[in-house]
């Protein structure tokens, strides 16, 4: 496979950071040469373990996801029946979560757990960012921070989806879709925390805000809390769960949030640049790929006509 300049850059950086020696370097370059040029053909032919092949999320990220996942849903189920009290489902749902006297305690307790999860996440990210910068290993494009490349990836991916391109773009560890989702969730979380705090500590917000704006702020918060909650729930139910449970190849479930691992075909399809790093970092992946390319005769150098001729003799 002929790598794009971008992919080459990622590979070079990865080999430099991992202090790959010349022997390994030659091995990796040879291996990449043997990968078929058509990336689609490549990910169609690898063998993946449904529960994941390649490392993606550390245990901290998985714990943070689990905390947010459980608290978010319970917060939604205890909060929505109050905000949307006139809906037909509100009363039964409120009864189901224990009635107002209990659900308000659950809601406030879990809100603090959610805030803790958010702080845990922010401090964890800060810690690994500082650590990586100190070690000279920090790669901006490998992080969740959006770059201009994401805009281009989005455009190219839309072209692929609409049939005007035969390849998906070479995307990094976090593709544009995940960055949108991540920052939407982060923003939503912040909105929920600020608006929620304006319900539980209204006097505090009235004290610190200037005269004239305090009441407008409170009105905005009263609107924001249920609107944002409903939007978040709909995004989770119709988009996130579709992407991780129902989309082709992900049904019935992507195990990444439990195992921290991503399937090989998924990594190559949507996170090809990260897969290149996997090839540098994981000798066993190189070994696997070598065997696969041989077994499936996928290498562009394999002369199929010659082989067929040999077989027939």
């Amino acid at each position, binding site marked *: 496979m002929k790598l794009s300049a971008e992919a080459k850059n990622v590979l070079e950086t990865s080999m430099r950071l991992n202090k790959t020696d010349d022997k390994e370097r030659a091995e990796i370059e040879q291996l990449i040469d043997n990968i078929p040029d058509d990336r*689609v053909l490549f990910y169609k032919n690898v063998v993946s373990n449904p529960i994941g092949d390649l490392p993606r999320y550390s245990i901290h990220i998985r714990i943070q996801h689990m905390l947010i996942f459980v608290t978010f849903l319970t917060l939604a189920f205890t909060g929505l029946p109050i905000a949307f009290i006139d809906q037909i489902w509100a009363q039964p749902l409120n009864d189901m979560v224990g009635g107002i006297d209990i659900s308000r305690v659950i809601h406030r307790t879990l809100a603090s757990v959610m805030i803790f999860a958010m702080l845990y996440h922010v401090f964890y990210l800060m810690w690994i960012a500082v650590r990586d910068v100190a070690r000279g290993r920090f790669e901006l494009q490998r992080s969740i921070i959006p770059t201009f490349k994401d805009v281009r990836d989005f455009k190219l991916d839309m072209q692929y989806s*609409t049939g005007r391109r035969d390849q998906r773009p070479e995307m990094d560890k976090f593709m544009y879709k995940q960055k949108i989702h991540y920052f939407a969730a982060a923003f939503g979380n912040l909105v929920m925390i600020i608006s929620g705090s304006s319900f539980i500590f209204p006097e505090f917000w009235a004290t610190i805000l200037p005269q004239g704006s305090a009441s407008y702020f409170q*009105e905005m918060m009263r609107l924001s809390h249920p609107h944002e909650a409903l939007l978040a729930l*709909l995004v989770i139910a119709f988009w996130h769960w579709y992407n991780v449970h129902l*989309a082709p*190849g992900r049904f019935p479930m992507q195990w990444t949030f439990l195992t921290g691992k991503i399937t090989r*075909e998924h990594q190559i399809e949507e996170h090809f640049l990260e897969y290149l790093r996997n090839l540098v970092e994981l000798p066993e992946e190189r070994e696997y790929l070598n065997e696969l390319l041989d077994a*499936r005769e996928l290498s562009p150098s394999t002369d199929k006509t010659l082989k067929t001729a040999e077989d027939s003799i």
Partner: protein
Amino acid sequence: MKKYILIIPLLILLFSNPVSAFEDETGCLLCHKYPKMGRITEQGIKRSYQVIPGMFGSTVHRNVPCTDCHNYIKQLPHQEIKEGVRCDSECHSIKNPATGKNFSHKPIYNTFKASIHGRDKIETGLDADKPYCISCHTNPIFNPDEEKPPKRIIDRCVVCHEDRKFVTNWYKHTSRRIRDVKRSPSEIVELCSNCHSDKALIERHVEAAKKEGRELGKKYPIAVESYDESFHGKVTRYGFTKAANCLDCHAKQDNYYMNVHDIRSSRDPESPVHENNKVDTCRHCHIHADEKYAQFDPHPTSKKEANAFRYYANIIYGWVGDIVIALLIGMAVLETIGRRRDGAGWILHKGSSWWRKSPRNRDRIE
């Protein structure tokens, strides 16, 4: 067997708790005991004038003779009744034990009369929309099962007061008031809503005020619906008892029982929701409330004419939400179509989800 069956009603009679005898000294029951005693009013409403002695004998007014309240009846059979019972009349048979005067509801009636709700028994026009005493207060039936007084207390009382029945009733009367029995917040909201959510009534008053150039409260037309929309209103509807209900803000709290009868207009300096008193009123619950806090709207509404800011903010929020959802779902659909076109299957099957054939002629090698 048959003769034993007869015993059952006898036993019931024997052990039933007969209510205090209702003494009909004035002979009212001569006529009013009959179930068909009644008439159809000019408005076509059937009114029953039957008095069931056993029932009346269980009410809080059981010891008041008929003519103490129906004091306009001087002869039998009586004349047509024009006004009916007024709650500020004096009982000649019951003395106020504190003052020794004839018992009367006059003090609370006068307070009520001076309030924004104040009216006379018979009113016409807009004042007829206001509540009279019986709009909120019925003649409640004394519930004999409500609470059995502890035997040790009754035993102690009868040592001097002799009559066990008297001390039992006295205990119930007193303990009920000590227990702070009042309407629950949701009942209070329901009570006020009876009139304040009546669209025709509100319209009548708004129109009249406009004609007379009289100022009405800003929230008057939407008082109930906006309260129901507020956080206080929502949790109260679910039965939460610590959130503010109508009376917590609109009645002064120094003597709750007196002041709930003394609701004032929000322009009245005496009103707890008057501009100058708001902060103190908020502080009953929100102890750190300041002037800025008191500007928060306890009757939030998204109606354009009442709160244009919230109206537009709500619309923008709605649109942003809809657009975000539509875009994200659109993106997921597009992605699915693209990947399906390329041969993606739904399930990861034998190590791959790309086992379907694709028209692009680059299928998985089996």
